[in-house]
């Protein structure tokens, strides 16, 4: 009996140690993977702070020890207008998207409206229309309506990137809201619209926030509609600003990179604020109905 215990003890000890070692190894490998995958981001940050003479150096400058913020100062003067256009367009897209997607998701998830299946199907298929096809037709339509260079055209075009995704996300969130809530509101005499606005939306606010943030981000990152629907430089969003920046001056890389860093801020905010829902968002729009 005692021999069994004695012989088992070191084994168990070793197993626990190696388990801990394996966990540490796992974290180590994980850190290396993340470092490799996120290296381009670090490199952007690094370059945004380098002096012009260091940017063309023959050996990589791994740390911006003699850094300068001149790049960032340039951004505010040359890209400030583009950033403002992007902000207006992204907020507008967010509003349009929530206005269309919210009621649709509520109708599908809770009111059991007729034709739910075809609607889901239509939204899934809409996501798959090639962007260049949309750009081609929307340009012709916007041209006919005199909306080229108008932020309104960009808002409506960008919303086509968001409405299906937002509706499907909100739909899966709203399905989790208990029916008793809307029943109680109905017994209290609230109309459906009122129930939606003051009961359902507050309860499902995480879903609303996720849908809103994604809509903002999609519009903020849009390049195809931006480059086709704006011809005047002062009406172009920041993505087009960067594109033309690269084309125009090939040496001013620290300003380009500083613009890139600033243009990445919304993505960083999204990841921090809604970390839990980002993965769920990718998944729910892709695999789930």
């Amino acid at each position, binding site marked *: 009996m005692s021999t069994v215990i004695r012989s088992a003890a070191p084994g168990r000890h070793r197993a626990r140690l190696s388990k801990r070692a394996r966990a*540490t190894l*796992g*974290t180590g490998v994980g850190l290396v*993977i*993340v470092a490799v995958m996120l290296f*381009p981001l670090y*490199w*952007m940050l690094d370059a945004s702070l380098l002096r012009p003479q260091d*940017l*063309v150096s023959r050996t*990589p400058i791994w740390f911006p020890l003699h850094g300068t913020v001149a790049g960032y100062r340039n951004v505010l003067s040359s890209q400030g207008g583009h950033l403002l256009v992007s902000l207006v367009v992204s907020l507008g897209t967010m509003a349009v998207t929530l206005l269309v*997607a919210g*009621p649709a998701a*509520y*109708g*599908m998830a809770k009111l*059991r*409206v*007729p*034709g739910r299946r075809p*609607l889901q199907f*239509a*939204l899934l298929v809409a996501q798959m*229309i090639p*962007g*260049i*096809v949309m*750009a*081609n*037709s*929307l*340009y*012709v*339509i916007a*041209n006919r309506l005199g909306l080229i260079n108008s932020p309104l055209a960009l808002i*409506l075009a960008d919303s086509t990137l968001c409405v299906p995704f937002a509706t499907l996300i909100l739909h899966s969130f709203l*399905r989790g809201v208990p*029916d008793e809530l809307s029943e109680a509101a109905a017994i209290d005499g609230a109309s*459906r619209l009122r129930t939606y606005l003051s009961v359902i939306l507050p309860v499902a606010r995480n879903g609303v926030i996720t849908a809103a943030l994604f809509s903002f981000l999609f519009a*903020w*990152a849009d*390049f195809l509609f931006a*480059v*086709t629907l704006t011809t005047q430089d002062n009406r172009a969003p920041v993505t087009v600003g*960067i*594109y033309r920046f*690269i084309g125009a001056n090939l040496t001013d*890389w620290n300003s*380009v*990179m500083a613009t*890139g860093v600033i243009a*990445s801020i919304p*993505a960083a905010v999204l990841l921090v604020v809604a*970390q839990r829902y*980002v*993965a769920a968002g*990718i*998944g729910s729009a*892709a*695999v789930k109905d």
Partner: protein
Amino acid sequence: MAAMLSETAPVAPAAGAGAHPVRGRRRTAWRAAGFVVPVWVYILCFYVYPLVSNVRMGFQDYTVSSFYTGSAPYIGFANYLAVWRDPQFARIVVNTVLFTAGSLVFQFGIGLALAVFFRRAFPLNGVLRSLLLVPWLLPLVVSGTVWRWMLYYDSGVINQTLLHLHLISQPIPWLVSTKLALVAVTLVNIWVGIPFNMVILYGGLQALPQQVYEAAAIDGAGAWQRFTKITLPLLRPVTLVVLTLGLIYTVKVFDVIMLVTQGGPANSSQTLTTYAYDLSFQQLSFGQGAAVGNLLILVAIVFAGIYLRAVRDQEGPNR
């Protein structure tokens, strides 16, 4: 099951209260339709109408003058013929296939490897996993710009590092060689797509029944055997979804190519999507651009069909 319960629950009181329960329920259902009218109108205006007008434009001689005169004569298949006879067209189709296949194989392979790796329990697992999503969230214009900067011939960090490690003796002309530009844009697109593949495959792995693995371990199956004999077969539905969806997304990639190489040099990294853009917005031949766009719609339809079937099959047992 839970969803079914909650769907039937609210019907009961209504059926008890109304004199004509069925008609009453149907009327409220139609009144509730007000909530989905906006989205249907939206779908008609912003997806169906552009789609139809693009198909029509493919058969019209639509150029800049059409904007002023308001008329674009129908010319049958002339746009398609013009595209077909373009000496670059074959190259562009081949590029599109290579770009798509290369992107999918490596995005999926690396994504799956990472998904399997992150199934282990270790500290910081969750944080590291969400950090890996950053490439997916970043505006593609930003990623494309950074990669272009990293791929430069003599001041790019990739060539400098490879030279430093003595893996190459000459810098690689990633962006200026007609042989390598397509490799460069594919590389960048792989990097962009890894997080998406990882997230969905990780979700798929989490849903696999654990007992099968325990049983296999008892039977003495090794790690590699468990992977090839259990994980891969069980993961097949998710794999199909990821690959078809990935294909639909990859064929329409625009930003990465425009930012890294602009389809050049000499069309060597041009795909059907950037070619359609070039025809419409650089050569201002909207009819031909629409024709190429319609080819892309055909590709999307075929793979959307496969995708929707895969999703249905995957959901079947869960419902």
